[in-house]
């Protein structure tokens, strides 16, 4: 197959059915050859017809019932029902306000710096990475009492919200807790089907979910453990799995988005 033949083949394949691509200058060579070569023209027409059939088939996908409602509900659940940011409009600043604004901004910056330095970023503002890093430290048992567990388990805001995407055949055993900015993060140990290294599920109620996906997102995969985080309705979840990434994928349902 010579270079021109190969180039003609690529040009034929690049022509879209239903579009007038042949009229474009870059298809000039193909248009010229088609005029004088009956066999090439037949090949071109066949290619266009097959492409048309494939194009039709590509769009022939059944839409699941109730999909629009689920999508809209999902947007609401993840806090996306807040009004989107309005287009920024120019603001006229009078010169006499400048010193006042400058000092206010300066004081705010210093206060924020002190706050973040002393207290760390508030959990409401955590990014998925910050949540994963913190959750990774919350798996150490601290001698939790039976009474404390009873109190925790009576807290319906924690108990009622088990996430839909746990490793298959995992059993949850209460393990420990951690106070995080006014909320209690509960850590459950997972008894997994492979009886391997420990795995934990951490549930943090009532946090903002901005930046979080609805399905587990693997954030940490080094240091002998994997940590995935995601957001459900009014809760953040972290899955901490000791071991390699291979073990993580063995335990977590293997879908492209899970």
């Amino acid at each position: 197959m010579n270079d021109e033949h190969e180039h003609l083949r690529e040009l034929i394949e690049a022509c879209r059915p239903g579009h007038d691509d042949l009229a474009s200058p870059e298809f000039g060579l193909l248009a010229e050859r088609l005029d004088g070569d009956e066999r090439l023209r037949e090949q071109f027409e066949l290619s266009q017809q097959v492409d048309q059939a494939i194009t039709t088939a590509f769009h022939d996908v059944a839409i699941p019932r109730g999909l629009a409602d689920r999508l809209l509900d999902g947007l609401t659940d993840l806090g996306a029902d807040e009004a989107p940011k309005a287009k920024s409009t120019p603001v006229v600043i009078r010169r006499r306000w400048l010193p006042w604004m400058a000092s206010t901004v300066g004081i705010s910056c210093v206060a924020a710096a002190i706050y973040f330095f002393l207290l760390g970023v508030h959990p409401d503002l955590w990014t998925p990475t910050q949540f994963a890093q913190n959750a990774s430290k919350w798996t150490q048992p601290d001698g939790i009492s039976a009474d404390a567990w009873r109190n925790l388990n009576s807290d319906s805001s924690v108990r009622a919200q088990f996430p839909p995407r746990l490793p298959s055949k995992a059993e949850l055993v209460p393990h420990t807790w951690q106070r995080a900015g006014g909320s209690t993060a509960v850590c459950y140990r997972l008894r997994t089907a492979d009886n391997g290294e420990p795995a934990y599920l951490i549930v943090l109620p009532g946090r903002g979910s901005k930046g979080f996906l609805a399905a587990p997102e693997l954030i940490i995969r080094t240091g002998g453990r994997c940590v995935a985080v995601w957001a459900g309705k009014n809760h953040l979840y972290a899955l901490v799995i000791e071991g390699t990434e291979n073990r993580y994928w063995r335990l977590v349902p293997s879908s492209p988005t899970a």
Partner: protein
Amino acid sequence: MVDRAESTADSQMESTRPANDQAGDAPLEIRQLVLDHYQAVYRYAFRLTGSQADAEDITQQAFLLAHRKLHQIRDANKASGWLFAVLRSCYLKSIRRRRPTPAANLELNVDDIPDRLDRGEEIDRERLQQVLDELTDDAKLVLVLFYFEQLSYKEIAEQLDVAIGTVMSRLARAKSNLRARLLAKIAADAVQ
């Protein structure tokens, strides 16, 4: 590749600004955006992922991302192209987390393949999906851009941020592979 796809989505969004800024159209609302485009976005997602659950997941993610940057979309006519770019970005992120496809799934018995598809051959949607699922992600992406979005090879090169020559050869190879596998499936189904 993921970052490039994200920046493509962002640049598409930027390119939608001027028309509407001058026209002063009402801003898009997320509810209307979902209702107008969810079917096309879901179909696109399904062709990429091959499963209903995964297609729904990345469709949801795409609309969530779209909502966050909704204020930047000014031209409703360009919303679908931008949504497709966002969806591709979500898909590329998701496959980065996925385990590699076993090599056995990629085998093709060339002896079973008839010479070519007939003119009138109807392409079954499920058969098409089975074949797409067997292809590499690069091949699948270029085919979806060509057949679903019906982009020109130049536009595909722009979207994927690769050279035009690369797109032409990748597209020709992917189409040839797709047809061969479709033919093999048709032949196998006919024998059964």
